[in-house]
């Protein structure tokens, strides 16, 4: 199993979720995060003074998936979250040692 961690632009969340649903991924966990990278944050101006907002709001998806479909999930996220503009984000893949569904105690692929 893999744990796929994707950092994407917030307004792409709904699209990505739907695209993943279409290929059979029904569960995921989402967090609001702040990204630092090439893309710079907005400048805000209050009473004439500039405030450089150093972070850019991003959304992070954590998705545990079976090894079989990991590549397809990565591709799907890539295709859907892509806007060809700087700051589109990253997809990281980690090996998952084990997984368990709390409600049933099932583990492995059953748990996802």
């Amino acid at each position, binding site marked *: 199993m893999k744990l796929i961690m994707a950092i994407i632009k917030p307004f792409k969340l709904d699209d990505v979720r739907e695209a993943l649903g279409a290929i059979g991924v029904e569960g995921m966990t989402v967090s609001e995060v702040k990204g630092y990278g090439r893309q710079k944050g907005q400048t*805000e*101006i*209050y*009473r*004439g*003074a500039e*405030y450089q*907002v150093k972070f850019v709001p991003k959304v992070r998806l954590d998705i545990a998936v079976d090894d079989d479909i990991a590549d397809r999930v990565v591709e799907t996220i890539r295709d859907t979250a892509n806007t060809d503009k700087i700051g589109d984000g990253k997809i990281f893949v980690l090996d998952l040692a084990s997984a368990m569904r709390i409600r049933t105690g099932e583990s492995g692929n059953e748990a996802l």
Partner: protein
Amino acid sequence: MLRRLIAFRSVLLASGLAVLTPTLALAQDGGVNGANTAWILTATALVLFMTLPGLALFYGGLVRSNNVLSVLMHCFAIACLVSVLWLVAGYSIAFGSGGALNQWWGGLDKAMLAGVGMDTTSGDLPESVFFMFQMTFAIITPALIVGAYPERIKFGAVLLFTALWLLLVYAPVTHWVWGGGWLADRNVMDFAGGLVVHATAGTAAIVLALALGARKGFPGDVSPPHNPGMTMIGAAMLWVGWYGFNGGSALAADGAAGMAITVTHISAATAALTWMLVEWIKLGKPSLIGTVTGAIAGLATITPASGFIGPVGALAYGIVAGIVCYIAVQLIKQKLKIDDSLDVFAVHGVGGILGTLLAALFASPALGGFGYGEGMTMTSQFTVQVIGVVSVVAYTAIVSLIIIKVTQAVAGLRSSEEEETMGLDLSEHGERGYSL
């Protein structure tokens, strides 16, 4: 003796406005005018509302989220402290008859409201009503100074500074201008507090900002206002309350009050639009915080003139206030790098001084104003206004500095760096602003 009213009335009479419709028919000597009393009771509530919660919100929205409660606390505690001190001595110093020293202060005859009962009058108002109305001015003035020192001051210092400042700066200056003191004798024009309120608060603010030093990270790296909507709510409440501030300063429910709120409102609206346009042109976007700051600048600037000038003058006041206060903010923060954090001097100090000086101009009937006091001309009035500004600013600066030194010695001024990083909400008050 109510010199302020008398001074003001005489200005009107002298300028040929004696035909003001007599609304005061009910008030014989020592009698109470119910209509005026109704309006000043209302105005008192409106002016209290300006500080609690108006100004508190206006300032609270501009700081970091972990300092919002400390700003609200400053305003609330100042309101409480000043109220008690106003009863104990402040009112007497400001509005008592100081005997031989009456040019300078009002003495302590009226301390604890000695001799004032339900049927004591001040002009055609119950004296208790006049006492309360003036108290709300005494509350907001030191509360304005809160904008100079947020995010880094010790709470004890706020209390000690405020107490001394009220008795040693605000009350005497009020006596000079409105209580029959030396500036009143010279016919200085300050309808609702350009000198008494805004010039004193602004001057004290910049002195205090210099003594205290800048916030960590200033100017390049301070946090943006945590809640501009809160600031707008506060500004809106200040605007509404200002009807009581300037309209109530007529001390009657009459055409003078009506004209005062008219010019006040027009100046606020014009200054807000002006500031908005300046930002739009210079920075590409008109901001909410800029626009509401402009409104406050317009209100502060017209305050000293609000009983003397007409609607067209108010338009001019608004434009000037919007531009000049905008420049003042940039100058003090960006050029001079003084961390008068919420721009008290740039908005209130500059506005109050500007409005006091311009009053000599725009009171002229030729410019739609309602004229000068007996024997006064535009030139002689302007001279008096300059004397008023210079003496009030100088006195305030010097005495404020002494008070700051005393406060530093007794209570300490500034929080530790760790407390500043943590925010004053937790470090000084043990509370957090938001648990959402």
